[in-house]
């Protein structure tokens, strides 16, 4: 009668342990040291940051968030994203698993010093918020002529 879809005793916790181990391995490989604002592992939403000479790209993996209610600020070189996610919950239904994030969130990332707060674009697609911040001209590699 009770298949594992409903069985949250054994399977789920084994899954968690396995996942944790994997995460540990992955994170220990990372080249970055924890910034003072870095949140504990597993905080919501997960963030990726990448750079090119022209711009800084920040990706927020936040499915089902209303992008209009997100508060994105860039002050000096600190990018902060505040928002909330309220997953639709069925009243009166019996829940077997409730793993999805529910509540307010707040994340901050340090960007390279030359991120230009005047030239920021954000767009939301398929549950991923992409914030692109142009870098100031001076940061681009320049060829220096030897006289």
């Amino acid at each position, binding site marked *: 009668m009770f*298949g594992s*879809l*409903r069985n949250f005793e054994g399977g789920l916790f084994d899954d968690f342990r396995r996942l944790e181990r994997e995460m540990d391995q992955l994170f220990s*490989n990372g080249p970055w040291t924890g910034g003072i604002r870095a949140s504990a592992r597993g905080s919501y939403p997960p963030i*990726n940051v*990448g750079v*090119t000479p022209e711009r800084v790209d920040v990706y927020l993996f936040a499915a089902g968030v209303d992008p209009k209610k997100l508060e994105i600020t860039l002050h000096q070189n600190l990018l902060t994203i505040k928002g909330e996610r309220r997953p639709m919950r069925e009243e009166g239904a019996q829940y077997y698993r409730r793993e999805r*994030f529910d509540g307010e969130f707040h994340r901050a990332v340090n960007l390279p010093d030359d991120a230009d707060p005047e030239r920021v674009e954000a767009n939301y697609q398929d549950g991923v918020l*992409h914030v692109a911040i142009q870098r100031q001209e001076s940061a681009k590699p320049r060829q220096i002529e030897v006289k």
Partner: protein
Amino acid sequence: MKDKSEIAKQETGNVQNRQEHERPISPAVDIFEDESGITLQADMPGVSRDRLEIEIDRDTLAIEGKAEIPMPEGLEAIYADVRSTRYRRSFTLSHELNGDAAEATLKDGILTLRIPKREQYQPRKIEVQVS
């Protein structure tokens, strides 16, 4: 600045190595049951409809998706919580669930999958005849 770019270079090298054994992310799910069936909701940000696969094979349900993130060429990672673009998770279904009649929707990276119970397992209201 110089240090950072060197570190980033090392990282891109590793990424290629890692690609082969890149492990899928197990998406967070909510599962609830009501009288007529079971509903599963899964967070799969970055997955579009054509990159989502749902497989029901007898009593096994597998959901799989590939996130597609628009990235500029030559991007160097400086921080990453998400280290895989593949999602995968599977469940065992019990026999009263009718996998053939399952319906799925995907919106803003959230998959909602509804699996109804077979008719004979749905609760019936029995009317009491008053004579």
